[in-house]
């Protein structure tokens, strides 16, 4: 499988499209800035959210037990899934019990992580993603390229073509209002037919046993309000201690994600409607292992706002698919290595460590520090390609010895000055593919100093 760097190089070949992608996401980042700057307490909110999440992670065992007990009191059926396989199996069993063949699902990165759609489709169960962006990529048989804006990599003209093929809209019509209306009509039928509704969870409240789901389209509610079975899939880290803590997070979430003061719908589910069933599936899938890693545990604070993607200069110019992981961008690059260090060992290197991700993060995850620390783990675990480690081992030897360093530097400079161009600028020199090397001076600073000061 190709690496981030290789996939990014392919993405960037279409420079106009790269600029369009970068511009679209930069606009979202600017909306976030405008919105955040209107709250004088913005930095205090971030700090408060960070501390609440620290408390949650330090007491997660107790909060989970409390959450389960409260949910059960409300008549909710609670399930525990240790990994993706268990998650899918549990959902399969619930659906089987109800003989559910047609399912609607609102946005959930957790079910993407568990590959629930593939699992259900293999059992001939129809699963329809009802978030518009998710529905678009589902029709295209693609993975989301962004956790909040899953179809951000697709232009409206491409959506027009897709809907013409899939939904019979007019050929060549890519008017967003027209296309949205067509999607709404299509999804309305799916909501009416649904035997069960699946959602993700933004926040679980330990105190009440309820779950909170934030959407802009109301699609989670459309599903839960019409289907006889509702299933909420929640990672163990989604808990908040009390309902009173929620306001801190809802104020941060939408502003960080899109610059909105809040999501259009912030829905609280506590118990099933009369005659229907409500299930919550609580999923670990590597999270408790991550909780045990001191340097990396606070990545579990993430509230999936996507702000780190919108601000990341690499993400904006390489697209979400270049990260070849469920969660792309900076947060994905620190979460994914925990799941599979070998498969994702390239991701922590898909960064200049500029630190913008950490500064936008509404819960103050030290993302760029963790990228740096994952790099160290990757080397320790022999996952750093030899093409990187061998030259650097030689560099280390040179830098350890000042006189070797002086000689090597002198030779390098004189080579740059005197060698014919083709010997310097060739396939072996990645720096020189689109860049000149610095002009090599005759004299290093040290040599100048010896002549001019050290007398």
């Amino acid at each position: 499988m190709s690496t981030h760097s290789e996939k990014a190089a392919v993405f960037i070949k279409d420079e106009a499209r790269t600029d369009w992608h970068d511009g679209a996401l930069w606009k979202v980042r600017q909306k976030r800035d405008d919105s955040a700057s209107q709250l004088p307490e913005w930095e205090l909110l971030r700090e408060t959210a960070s501390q609440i999440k620290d408390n949650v992670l330090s007491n997660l065992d107790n909060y989970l037990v409390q959450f389960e007990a409260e949910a059960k009191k409300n008549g909710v059926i609670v399930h525990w899934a240790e990994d993706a396989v268990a998650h899918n199996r549990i959902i399969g069993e619930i659906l089987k019990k109800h003989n559910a063949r047609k399912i609607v699902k609102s946005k959930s990165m957790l079910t993407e992580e568990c590959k629930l759609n593939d699992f259900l489709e293999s059992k001939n169960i129809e699963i329809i993603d009802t978030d518009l962006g998710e529905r678009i990529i589902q029709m295209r048989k693609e993975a989301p390229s962004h956790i909040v804006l899953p179809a951000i990599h697709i232009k409206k003209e491409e959506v027009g073509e897709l809907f013409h093929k899939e939904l019979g809209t007019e050929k060549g019509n890519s008017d967003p209002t027209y296309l949205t209306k067509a999607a709404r009509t299509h999804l309305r039928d799916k909501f009416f037919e649904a035997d069960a509704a699946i959602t993700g969870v933004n926040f679980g409240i330990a105190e009440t046993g309820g779950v909170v789901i934030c959407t802009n389209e109301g699609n989670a509610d459309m599903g839960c309000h019409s289907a006889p079975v509702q299933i909420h899939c929640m990672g163990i880290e989604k808990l908040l201690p009390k309902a009173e803590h929620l306001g801190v997070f809802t104020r941060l979430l939408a502003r960080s994600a899109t610059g909105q003061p809040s999501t259009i719908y912030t829905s609280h589910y506590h118990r099933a409607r009369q005659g229907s069933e409500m299930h919550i599936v609580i999923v670990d899938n590597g999270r408790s292992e991550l909780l045990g890693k001191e340097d990396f545990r606070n990545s579990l604070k993430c509230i999936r706002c996507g702000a780190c993607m919108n601000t990341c200069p690499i993400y904006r110019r390489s697209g979400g698919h270049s990260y070849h992981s469920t969660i792309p961008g900076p947060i994905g690059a620190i979460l994914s290595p925990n799941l599979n260090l070998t498969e994702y060992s390239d991701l922590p290197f898909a960064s200049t460590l500029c630190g913008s991700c950490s500064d936008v993060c509404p819960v103050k995850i030290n993302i760029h520090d963790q990228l740096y620390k994952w790099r160290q783990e990757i080397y320790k675990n022999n996952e750093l390609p030899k093409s990187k480690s061998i030259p650097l081992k030689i560099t280390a030897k040179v830098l350890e010895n000042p006189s070797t360093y002086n000689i090597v530097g002198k030779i390098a400079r004189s080579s740059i000055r005197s060698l014919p161009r083709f010997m310097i600028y060739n396939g072996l020199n990645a720096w020189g593919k689109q860049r000149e090397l610095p002009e090599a001076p005759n004299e290093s600073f040290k040599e100048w100093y010896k002549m001019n000061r050290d007398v």
Partner: protein
Amino acid sequence: MKVGLFIPCYIDQFFPEVGIATLQLLEKQNCEVFFPEQQTCCGQPLANTGMEQDGKKIYNQLAQLFPKCDYVVVPSPSCVHHIREHYDIVEQTDEILHLRKNTYDIVEFLVDILKVEHLDARFPHRVGLHQSCHGLRGLQLAKPSELMKNIPSKWNKVLEMVEGIELAELNRPDECCGFGGTFAVAEEAISVKMGKDRLADHVANKVEVLTSGDMSCLMHLQGIARRQKSGLKIMHIANILNGDKL
């Protein structure tokens, strides 16, 4: 005041004029400058690639060069950031702690320690400031656009002391240039694209001279500008502050 001068490897080898300007700036401020010639590098290239364990000897050697200096000054926020933040993996000897605590970027040193209010420098050009990430977000030399709090810019403070200078506003005042150490080679396509986009922002805002505290960012940007045969000039901030001519 005894000030140790640390000139990072790539500046020593490729941009000696930046080292000279830094030295002269300190001398003009009546600092007693000490330049130990046994120095090489802070070890960041290794560490940023995951090999910090292989850099421990380099860290310790650097620290041993400066125990008698009140401060160590470096014309690179990135190297300063590395020394302060990442020298925590070696034994915290007196030398290491002394180095981590007293190492400053040249601009930071002029503003925070020497409290300079006047510079004898003239630079009648339109200048675009590239706020290098490690200086901006690592050392907080100015306010990153993401943060909603007031952090006065130390770069602007010293540049505004230069006579005749005109500072340009940029469309994206603190986007990364894409250098990123070994990233520049490992992620060549993105690195160059980011650099091209930075240069275009400066050109669109009629910048004549692009400056920065970090010569590594400038080495990358200059490499692209020269390949593009762009007329944009590139100069380290120490040279401007030292009154060097374009």
